[in-house]
């Protein structure tokens, strides 16, 4: 009886250790699987799908709905100062190129909804805005802070670079203009 109890305990302990090891391996192997990492390694991964509430009006914003159009995907929050500074540039690009099919989609992350709405109104952001308060898109895209901007080609794949910090900044401005042209041509 005691022998069987001991054997049962050993089997249980072994199963527990094996389970934890499998969990560790799974975590380590899937950790780098976000869009930003793949983009950084020279690949053109598909833009992770999302379907979120619209911030500026009732309804949903689904990335899949823009398949066939070039998309500038901008992640922002109302508590982020550079987001405020880059908003006019994104608005002007949206107005300038929307007749060529370009869509700017703003995804507001980790933000108080009411504050984000005020921010959007104050900064005259007329392009589609999605609300992702819980930040579900953060890990899929590999976002490390706001603002961050991605470029989605007509076939739904991410192209060009992921631009961290405001696109209006001198360090990003040339790359942003080049990426806009690249995504329009892709």
């Amino acid at each position, binding site marked *: 009886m005691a022998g069987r109890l001991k054997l049962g305990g050993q089997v249980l302990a072994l199963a527990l250790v094996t389970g934890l090891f499998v969990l560790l391996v799974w975590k380590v192997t899937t950790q780098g699987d976000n869009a930003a990492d793949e983009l950084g390694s020279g690949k053109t991964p598909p833009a992770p799908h999302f379907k979120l509430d619209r911030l500026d009006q009732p309804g949903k914003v689904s990335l899949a709905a823009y398949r066939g159009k070039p998309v500038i995907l901008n992640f922002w929050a109302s*508590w982020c100062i550079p987001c405020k500074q880059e908003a006019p540039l994104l608005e002007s690009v949206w107005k300038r190129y929307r007749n060529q099919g370009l869509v700017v989609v703003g995804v507001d992350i980790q*933000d108080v909804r009411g*504050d984000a709405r005020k921010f959007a109104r104050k900064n005259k952001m007329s392009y589609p805005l999605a609300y992702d308060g819980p930040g*579900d898109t953060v890990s899929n895209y590999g976002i490390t802070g706001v603002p961050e901007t991605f470029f989605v080609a007509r076939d739904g794949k991410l192209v060009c670079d992921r631009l961290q910090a405001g696109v209006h900044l001198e360090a990003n401005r040339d790359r942003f203009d080049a990426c806009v042209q690249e995504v329009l041509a892709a």
Partner: protein
Amino acid sequence: VAALALAGPAAAACPTLADLEGKFICPTCKTTLDQSDAPAARQIKAYISRRIAACASEQQISDELVAQFGTSVLAAPPRKGFHWLAWLLPVVGLVVAAAVMAVLVWRWSRREPEPLGADSNGRGALDPELEQRLDSELARFDG
């Protein structure tokens, strides 16, 4: 006086920021609001302050924050549905550990004593022939 009498209990029921900022997590830095000065934490603190000024209850404020940020904004998991597991598993673990200890102690306390005369290696007493020889040797030594 009547207004004060009515307002008294209501004001007493309003939570304070100090009551609440340890109960919610800053979504960007993953610490409680009282330990964070990140812009996102400052924004949520301001939101809570506004709701406190409107005398919203702790439950209302909590529900509103969960509706916006999800359950990950809570420092402790809610006591409902799947989240009960987080509360119950430690208790179950303690109960199981106590039960295992009780069984082991009970078994050890019921272990039969080793036979008298056995030495530390578990060997039995001397056989009679050897004992008789030992007695005679001792008698000869004494004599």
